[in-house]
């Protein structure tokens, strides 16, 4: 078991006091941001990205791991107590989770969610340890045509599956791709779309785009509605914040099933964990119907346990896919990929050989992060809920300040601040008109990879397009793409045809 030895080495590296501190800070910040309404882990990572550049890569990624999982833990806290999910992955948790709160079982719901997230994350991390190196071995054979196929799959899947409309998803993707072509072309050295402005020679910084779309865009979106809406009511919760033996027995199978449903979705680029959480929820409900005393609709503990486990399992294996293939499957993973690049590291098969220390320390810190998060969340979830008492005007004004800080800290350029304002406004428009945001991030991050892969493939084949579908791997990937499209078309048709009541 070579993986286990490497993991042990990683654990030893991660368990230094300084690194433990970074895990703790990451987990702490992640939970805090997750708990706050409207903020999810992608925004937390976007805001932290610029700040972490002053750290060494290991510390930065350890912190990201904490933030990444922490955001998911926090999201469900609000979903359960206020019925406001912090992100789309926590929506499925609101259904039965909030019903549990309404029936006076809030603390148990929080405990169920925290343990579920832990179980899901744990399973996913184990899978990463066992399979990521194998995936990396497979990915070593990838050439430009395979990377192109992978990028195209990621583009189309994120743009179509989560979006309510095909045009909206693709438009969002194209915004991202267009941002990515600005700047000097890496292959030929030609200036592209800069119109002579030297500020654009290096392209638009990924930080400007992430902060603009994910953070400042959210601030503007809230500003456009804040005076016309009221925040949800926080339910007072009292009682034991742990589970009885019977409750554990009830929830345990659902944790397991949820984690198993969620894990494969980490490597499927459909824009995050929304789909697996709903699948896990739906599956539990179908099983529940067959029981003697169905619990769904009354605050079923299984209806909360399964999506929580699924969400974190997806998030965990997504890190594996990112490390082994360089394939981001959600907006948050896309930002982490960007972070790797800022350190001059390219996630993918070579990372496992070139920076094995970093990879295994990061994987080890996933385990440590989960334990820290369980400790932070299981007993203290009701305390975290108090964070929502921060008035919204302070919260979002503060986020705007951190947006400005992050952008300025990386470039020290006022032009970047103007640019982020414009992109923030675009982010607002996309939210206002219900365009998905994940495709834009995937487009920005994978756009250059897709372009260089396409051009290199065609260069080496002398312009023969057949090279793009020449290998078994790329044909398989395109077949998966066709499956995704068939699924989307079927779903649309079904939604229309089933309306027969």
């Amino acid at each position: 078991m070579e993986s286990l030895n490497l993991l042990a080495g990683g654990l030893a590296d991660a368990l230094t006091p300084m690194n433990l501190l970074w895990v703790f800070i990451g987990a702490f910040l992640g939970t805090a941001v997750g708990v706050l309404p409207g903020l999810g882990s992608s925004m937390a990572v976007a805001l932290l990205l610029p700040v972490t550049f002053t750290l060494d890569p290991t510390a930065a990624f350890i912190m990201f791991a904490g933030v990444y999982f922490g955001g998911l833990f926090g999201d469900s806290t609000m979903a359960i107590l206020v019925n406001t999910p912090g992100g789309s992955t926590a929506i499925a948790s609101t259904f039965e989770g909030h019903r549990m709160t309404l029936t006076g079982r809030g603390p148990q719901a929080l405990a169920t969610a925290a343990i579920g997230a832990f179980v899901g994350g744990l399973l996913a991390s184990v899978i990463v340890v066992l399979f990521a190196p194998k995936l990396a071995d497979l990915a070593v054979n990838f050439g430009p045509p395979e990377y192109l196929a992978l990028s195209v799959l990621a583009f189309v899947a994120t743009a179509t599956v989560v979006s309510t409309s095909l045009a909206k998803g693709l438009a969002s993707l194209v915004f991202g791709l267009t941002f990515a072509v600005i700047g000097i072309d890496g292959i030929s050295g030609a200036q592209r779309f800069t119109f002579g402005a030297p500020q654009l020679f290096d392209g638009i910084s990924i930080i400007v785009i992430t902060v603009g779309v994910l953070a400042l865009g959210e601030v503007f979106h809230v500003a456009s509605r804040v005076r016309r809406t009221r925040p949800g009511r926080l339910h007072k919760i009292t009682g034991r914040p742990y589970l009885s033996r019977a409750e554990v027995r009830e929830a345990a199978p659902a944790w397991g099933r949820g984690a198993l449903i969620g894990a494969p979705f980490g490597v499927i680029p459909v824009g995050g964990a929304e789909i697996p959480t709903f699948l896990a929820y739906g599956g539990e409900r179908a099983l529940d119907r067959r029981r003697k005393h169905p619990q769904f609709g009354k605050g079923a503990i299984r209806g909360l346990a399964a999506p929580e486990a699924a969400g974190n399992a997806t998030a965990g294996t997504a890190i594996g896919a990112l490390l082994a293939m360089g394939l981001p499957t959600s907006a948050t993973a896309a930002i982490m990929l960007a972070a790797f690049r800022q350190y001059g590291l390219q996630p993918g098969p070579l990372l496992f050989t070139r920076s094995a220390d970093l990879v295994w320390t990061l994987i080890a810190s996933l385990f440590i992060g989960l334990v820290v998060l369980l400790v932070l969340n299981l007993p203290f979830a009701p305390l975290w809920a108090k964070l929502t008492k921060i008035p919204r005007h302070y919260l979002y004004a503060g986020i705007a300040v951190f947006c400005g800080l992050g952008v300025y800290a990386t470039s020290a350029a006022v032009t970047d601040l103007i640019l982020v304002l414009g992109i923030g406004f675009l982010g607002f428009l996309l939210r206002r008109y219900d365009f998905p945001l994940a495709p834009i991030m995937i487009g920005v991050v994978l756009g250059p990879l897709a372009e260089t892969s396409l051009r290199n493939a065609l260069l080496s084949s002398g312009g023969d397009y057949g090279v793009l579908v020449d290998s078994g791997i790329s044909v398989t990937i395109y077949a998966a793409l066709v499956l995704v499209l068939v699924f989307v078309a079927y779903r649309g048709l079904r939604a229309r045809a089933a309306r027969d009541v």
Partner: protein
Amino acid sequence: MTVMVAYSHTDEGMVALEKARDAADRLQAPVVVFDLESPSKSADRRIALPEDAQKGERWLGPAHTAPAPVEDLLDTAREIDVALIVVGIRRRSPVGKLILGSQAQSIILGADVPVLSVKASGADA
């Protein structure tokens, strides 16, 4: 003791609503209209009353985040303890139902209280 009607903005939905009102009258029970096509934003699933709503009726809709409105209907039915669900149905081929699904069928199969199914007049439509 409540009568719930699975309502959608179709002929079948209208007929179901009428039947539900009749049935509720006879049972002396209140009517809850669950409008499958009007997502609700509030926690108690209330939606704005339409013009043709009658006095004493409660109008609900699926949570706007719910992936499957029918499932939400069934959960809500259990939550508020209804005694009878009324659905309007349309004739469809078994194969069509198999491949494309049917909301009416899901309600009939999934409910654990009696379901009264009614056809719109000229039921072949």
